[in-house]
């Protein structure tokens, strides 16, 4: 109930918030008859109600009490005490002030400054949404991209609405107005689309699978579908209907044009619904995909190193280019069909080259961090359940391996692990691999234990990679990318911390010791004069000798 009301409030708030500044700016640019006076007040009131409803639903969700949906005191406390509440409060004030100024401007003799001030305030209210939107989690520049997306969408939607709401007595001017609008709408839509796609990229990366395996992704695809519909109508209006109408202007009837414009506006309203859905759902790149719906996935890392992949990709790319070239020729239906078929075949060949098998758990993320405790637990589970077949080092050479229908794979070699995600390993532990004789461990190992085993295998694999490490780190030499497992520490005087507290900030020399056996070695280390050559890392791009002190 609260979520449904929240979605409704977002949709209504977005619609009114986009239309009001758009109407104001178009009124600054030229005469808009009575549209602003007639609709401005209604949009301000509806937008205000939507923001109040949004405040109420957010308050109830934050406190976990449905009764707070109706408690004004609870709303006010939320608006005062929280970042999201304060942002909503400022948006509400800016909307009321902007709407009021626009109403004043519409009723007084034409005053551009008043219109401009009202439009800017309404725009400020609209763009305030970015402060508590998903883009806020990405950081500063993304807020600007989101604000640009909203502002350009507002101008486009406001202009479209003015054309749809043109009074009967002014309809004969529709072709000229549409021509004028079309000149501005094209760059506006281009900017809206570009900023929207940039935002979508930011919210998906690096987990692009979220596009086809999340509610957020479904809303985004629906939105893109509606955008395609809007663009289709706009293109038809600009390059087909409008020239035809202008050619026969004397006896032309603007009704079909108006019908198409209204259809475009209706699609735009549906598009806002999809945008409200996007705002309510967690972004596709931020969620855990616990149920991947397809038996395959696409990967560059896992397929490019394999022989033949580059050749298949090149063949597919050539077919695709041929198809596009055939389509561009516009040489009749047969050539169009051939071009379409070649393009589709080329795309399919390229996708096939990049596809690897996947399981429902492929994109499941480890719920246990890669730390020393988990690896130690995993080692114990591995010794108890896995070593008999997989061998002590994971090379697939355990004592029972020879009797299995298929010899276990070598878990240490990179080509094998690059094709599979941690989630794939999780799935095999959960469900087993019947064709190779591996049993399911769903009953034997709980979720934590399964991730422990995977962390242990990860550590084994990283240790295997470390064999190419040299005593000296030199620029240009192949390096193993080693990530040390995290662990917590606590000193006798109560200080505590984690290894990762230092990650990215300074070099850490780990010394493992056991007292009293290591006492002499520690004393020797403390006496040594330490000089380490840095290889021009992130913290020291020049590369120089650094003198270290070692304290015990």
């Amino acid at each position, binding site marked *: 109930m609260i979520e449904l009301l929240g979605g409704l409030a977002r949709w209504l708030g977005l619609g009114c918030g986009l239309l009001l500044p758009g109407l104001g700016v178009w009124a600054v640019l030229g005469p808009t008859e009575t549209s602003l006076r007639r609709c401005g007040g209604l949009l301000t009131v509806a937008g205000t109600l939507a923001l109040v409803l949004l405040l109420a639903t957010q308050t109830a969700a934050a406190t976990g009490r449905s009764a707070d949906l109706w408690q004004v005191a609870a709303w006010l406390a939320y608006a005062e005490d*929280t970042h999201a509440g304060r942002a909503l409060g400022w948006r509400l004030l800016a909307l009321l002030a902007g709407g009021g100024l626009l109403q004043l401007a519409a009723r007084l003799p034409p005053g551009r400054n008043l219109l401009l001030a009202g439009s800017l305030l309404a725009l400020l209210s609209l763009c305030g949404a970015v402060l508590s939107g*998903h883009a806020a989690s990405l950081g500063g520049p993304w807020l600007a991209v989101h604000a640009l997306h909203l502002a350009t969408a507002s101008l486009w939607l406001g202009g479209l609405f003015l054309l749809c709401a043109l009074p009967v007595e002014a309809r004969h001017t529709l072709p000229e107005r549409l021509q004028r609008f079309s000149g501005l709408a094209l760059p506006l839509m281009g900017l809206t689309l570009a900023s929207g796609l940039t935002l979508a990229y930011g919210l998906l990366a690096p987990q692009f699978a979220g596009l086809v395996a999340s509610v957020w992704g479904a809303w985004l695809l629906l939105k893109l579908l509606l955008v395609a519909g809007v663009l289709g109508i706009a293109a038809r209006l600009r390059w087909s209907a409008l020239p035809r109408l202008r050619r026969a202007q004397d006896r032309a009837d603007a009704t079909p044009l108006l019908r198409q414009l209204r259809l475009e506006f209706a699609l735009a309203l549906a598009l806002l619904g999809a945008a409200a859905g996007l705002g309510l759902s*967690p972004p596709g790149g931020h969620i855990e995909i616990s149920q991947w719906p397809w038996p395959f996935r696409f990967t560059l890392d896992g397929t490019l190193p394999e022989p033949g992949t580059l050749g298949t990709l090149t063949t597919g790319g050539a077919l695709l280019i041929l198809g596009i070239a055939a389509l561009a020729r516009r040489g009749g239906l047969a050539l169009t069909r051939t071009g379409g078929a070649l393009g589709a075949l080329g795309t399919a060949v390229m996708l096939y080259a990049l596809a690897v098998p996947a399981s429902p758990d492929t994109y499941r993320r480890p719920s246990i961090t890669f730390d020393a405790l988990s690896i130690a637990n995993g080692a114990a589970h591995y010794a108890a359940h896995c070593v008999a077949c997989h061998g002590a080092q994971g090379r697939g050479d355990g004592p029972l391996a020879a009797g299995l229908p298929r010899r276990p794979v070598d878990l240490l070699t990179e080509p094998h692990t690059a094709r599979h995600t941690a989630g794939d390993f999780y799935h095999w532990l959960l469900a087993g691999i019947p064709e190779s004789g591996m049993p399911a461990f769903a009953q034997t190992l709980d979720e934590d234990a399964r991730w422990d085993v995977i962390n242990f295998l990860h550590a084994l694999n990283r240790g295997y990679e470390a064999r190419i490490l040299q005593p000296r780190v030199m620029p240009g030499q192949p390096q193993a990318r080693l990530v040390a497992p995290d662990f917590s520490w606590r000193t006798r005087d109560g200080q505590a911390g984690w290894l990762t507290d230092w990650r990215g900030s300074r070099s850490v020399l780990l010394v493992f010791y056991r007292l009293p056996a290591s006492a002499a070695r520690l004393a020797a280390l403390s006496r040594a004069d330490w000089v380490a050559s840095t290889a021009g890392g992130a913290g020291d791009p020049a590369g120089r000798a650094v003198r270290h002190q070692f304290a015990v």
Partner: protein
Amino acid sequence: MPKIALLLAFFCSLATPECFAHARLSRAEPAARSTLNAAPTRLRLSFNEAVEAKYSSVELRGPSGLVSGLGPLSAPEERTLELALPPLPAGRYDVHYRVLSADGHVIEADYRFSVQDAPAAQ
């Protein structure tokens, strides 16, 4: 009509189960699944985004049920929540937190840690 049904089925197939995650717990003290030699005196939860302490809550369940006497929840940093713990006897503890992210979304999750009897002094 079949085309609409097909389109609806396509979008329904995309709506696969997922976990709600706007802010995520990035660090906990005591650490998740850790076994401590001495009872901790404070609980500290760090998140990847800013959180609102006033609209957040933490419950601790121990061997004898819900632990009472937890200190007030404070936010020493905008991404961190902290509270003082009463003396905890040995046993397994489940931490349940409900947190309001700065973006207005609520997250809820659990983790556990254990306290074992202090080793006898030699």
